[in-house]
């Protein structure tokens, strides 16, 4: 069971980057913090799954559900022979750059196997799938990050958006802020 928050809409509003990179610094007293999956991961930091979440958090500067991460890591372990080595390599690049965001270090990941793997990890989190294909593995639907980028205006298809006929709303300009996720 992944608890997200007490907020009725299940949105977490805290940044998790700082916590991860500063080594499990607790943000004082917020309930959200206590529920944040990264804390336990940063504390444990053993095993491929934890390393995978660490890598994912470096590549994607958003809240990530560790249960979904475990599903992705499971598939990655099977599909990438050098999975553990690539995790370590990319994490090392980020640490060397003292990266706070993906933009800080992504360009330093060398083209080829490592860069492709980094893109695949991002692909998996955003699409919830292992590939575009019919036989893709599905890790998540509801928590695929593509839907988070539009969660302020669109529903995740198959989930209701509002009370009956209450969804009329003004057109949202591109300048509107990105939802926090």
């Amino acid at each position, binding site marked *: 069971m992944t608890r*997200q928050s007490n907020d009725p809409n299940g949105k977490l509003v805290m940044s998790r980057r700082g916590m991860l990179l500063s080594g499990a610094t607790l943000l004082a007293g917020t309930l959200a913090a206590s529920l944040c999956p990264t804390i336990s991961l940063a504390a444990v930091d053993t095993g491929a799954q934890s390393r995978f979440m660490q890598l994912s958090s470096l590549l994607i500067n958003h809240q990530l*559900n560790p249960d979904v991460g475990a599903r992705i890591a499971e598939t990655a372990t099977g599909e990438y022979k050098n999975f553990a080595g690539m995790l370590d390599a990319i994490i090392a690049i980020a640490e060397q750059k003292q990266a706070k965001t993906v933009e800080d270090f992504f360009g330093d990941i060398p083209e080829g196997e490592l860069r492709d793997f980094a893109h695949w990890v991002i692909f998996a989190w955003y699409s919830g799938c292992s590939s575009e294909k019919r036989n893709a593995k599905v890790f998540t*639907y509801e928590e695929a990050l593509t839907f988070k980028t539009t969660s302020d205006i669109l529903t995740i298809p198959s989930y209701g958006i*509002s*009370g009956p006929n209450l969804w009329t709303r003004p057109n949202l300009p591109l300048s509107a802020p990105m939802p926090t996720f």
Partner: protein
Amino acid sequence: MIMKSVKIFALAAPLAFAALAPASAQETKGQFSKELIEKGRYLATASDCVACHTNHAGGKPMAGGLPMSSPVGTIISTNITPSKEFGIGNYTEAQFADAVRKGIRGDGANLYPAMPYVSYSNMTDEDIHALYAYFTQGVQPVEEKAPETSLPFPMNIRASMMGWNMLFRPNETHKDDPAQSAEWNRGKYLAEGAAHCSTCHTPRGVFMQEQKDLNLTGGQIGPWFAPDITNDKVHGIGSWTQEDLVTYLKTGRLDHRAQAAGSMAEAISYSFQHLTDTDLNAIATYVRSIPNPSASKASAPTRFDQGKAGNDLSGFRGKDYADGIKADHAGSALYTANCASCHGYNAQGTADGYYPSLFHNAATAGDNATNVIAAILYGVDRHTKDGHVFMPPFGDQPNTVNALTNVEVASLSNYILKDYGNAKLAVTPEDVQLIRDGGPSSQLVLFARIGMGVGAAAALIVLCAAVWLFRRKRSQTQTAA
């Protein structure tokens, strides 16, 4: 056709007083004033007469014909329009008053207490007069006979109610308590009388009488549980403000706390939302003054603030559905498949709150699991000014979205309770069957028959039957359209 459910309780009591009072009055009626008729209409709304005395699937107002299921047979509400042949058009005001306040109909026969005359007994003569004016001159006569109620022996002996009435029917009209405010007194008059809150919210004793010392501390009503509405901050609604309660009575909901379903949805639909703000405030003032005799000393979580958002999707997403509902994640998989499309995959509801979250929700965090099961099996149906609130049923109705089995409902309920509501509760498939059958039933009918058979204590105790109105389980057997 809409079928309501009513429980019938038989209990041992004298049967010796079976006598028919003569229907003798031949009083001629003059024309009542429009104001008086309107006052009567309002009181009839406050008393929610229409809820039972109208077949809501196409029947005419007050023409009866609404079948109400009970463990011992179906009670069918009567035509109370002023039709002389089929309704109450021949009633004198005295006969009318006796029917409303004493449960004795014009021909002297006893009504079953499906009619909440125990509550209505507090009504003043003045208000009875207004109701009489309305029912004789404000309601369209409907020249149609409502089907007869025909209950099996011994329930078919209406006179058996006499003994029960002697024991449990109050025979006093309301008197103001000078120590209390006028608003409180008005509230008491309405809440204990016309609005008959205690009919559902007060637990019943061994003879199915309302236990007045436990007033409004909660009672089982067929498949639903009418919760504690005392001012206890933990078990009751002591955490609600006056405004909260008035809002609830007007709309049938309070965001992130509670929604009216079952009987309460009908009470909101047909009665409370139509009352004046003054009267709703009066009712709220009175209800909020009622303590729970075993009031909680310490603060503790209430039924309004338990559970939180979350999901278990990673356990089965991307895998085969049939496997998912069999395995460890069965409850969660059933939740996602059947409930989440409206209530959200984190049970968070919609952002506008129209579809409620299932955490911070009285329905999932009560002291028992009755309302979780009932909401799943029967859905929600409530009409308010803002529209028709409708959650479809997942029982065996013709319009069920998915006829869930007892095992599935139990599994789903346990997931909801554990993760969003009162985690201390657990539901078995047998519990679900009980609610599917209309709620816990009494063995009193059986006892009464056995008691009669052996003739035990025949001199004192033979039989009395009581029907206790439990209002409005909607079973959508033939929700036609």
